């Protein structure tokens, strides 16, 4: 799991870029491998400048990068950013798994506090009472 925390601006850009079906289709194409602008543009009935504009949005969002190969400008998917977004969006499972891992830590601390002879006596009293309300 990527631990990088994206800035608000980065998140806005990335989600903004993903909000468009054409741009998502471009990413799906690039997941299969790098491609030149013409190749990226071929499934769409739009002008090359229009496709170039979409590519720029994706590049600004950190979702793709572009490099020159011979005379072509090749587009490359940057999966790391997608991974960061996927982590950030999370899923039901991730939500609970990560919550429960944190709960493990909290429980361990509670147990240590309860066992520690030097710990505050009020905690021990709490535990004996069972559930405080």
């Amino acid at each position, binding site marked *: 799991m990527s631990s990088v925390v994206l800035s*608000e601006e980065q998140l806005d850009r990335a989600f903004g870029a993903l909000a468009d079906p054409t741009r998502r289709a471009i990413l799906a194409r690039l997941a299969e491998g790098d491609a030149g602008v013409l190749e990226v543009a071929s499934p769409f009935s739009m002008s090359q400048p229009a496709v170039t504009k979409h590519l720029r949005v994706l590049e600004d969002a950190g979702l793709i990068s572009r490099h020159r190969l011979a005379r072509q400008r090749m587009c490359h998917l940057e999966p790391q950013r997608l991974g960061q977004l996927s982590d950030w969006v999370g899923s*039901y*499972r991730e939500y*609970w798994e990560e919550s429960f891992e944190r709960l*493990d830590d909290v429980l361990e601390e509670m147990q240590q506090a309860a066992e520690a002879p030097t710990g505050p006596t009020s905690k021990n009293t709490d535990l004996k009472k*069972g*559930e405080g309300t």
Partner: protein
Amino acid sequence: MTMNTMQTEIETPAGEPVIRVRRFFKAPPELVYKACTEADYIRRWMGPRRLEVSECEVDVRVGGTWRLVHRAPDGAEFVFYGELLELDPPRRRVGTFVWEGAPEDKAVETMELEAVEGGTLLKTTTVHSSVAARDMHVANGMEGGIVESYERLDELVAAEQAA
């Protein structure tokens, strides 16, 4: 089935508006109950780390209400609330669960704690208002429809990882 590992089991039975979650904890039921019920503890663990718990209140009594607010890094807030219906520490707790984004789906969550060797087995059963509401809740990953392309995103990541 043994639950000696710390794995989270999540079941979403087909055709039932139900989510079942099971997880083993290395602590006695009394502590698990407390950590899952009292606001001071809940705020320390609920949610993934990137979602801050910006508010957490629980009025621990039958008929008492609870409210939890998650704040995402972009400032978006996700508000959850409900009412406690049954309290039977340290075995069982029943309450309602509502996400502010879909208040028509009032779910009923039952938490059961069973003392097992070496710790506690936590089981929650959440009954949503419909199968569709349940599915939406799971699909939204508790964060509520942030991106319609979320599934697409997973596909892309999976495709990239397979490549």
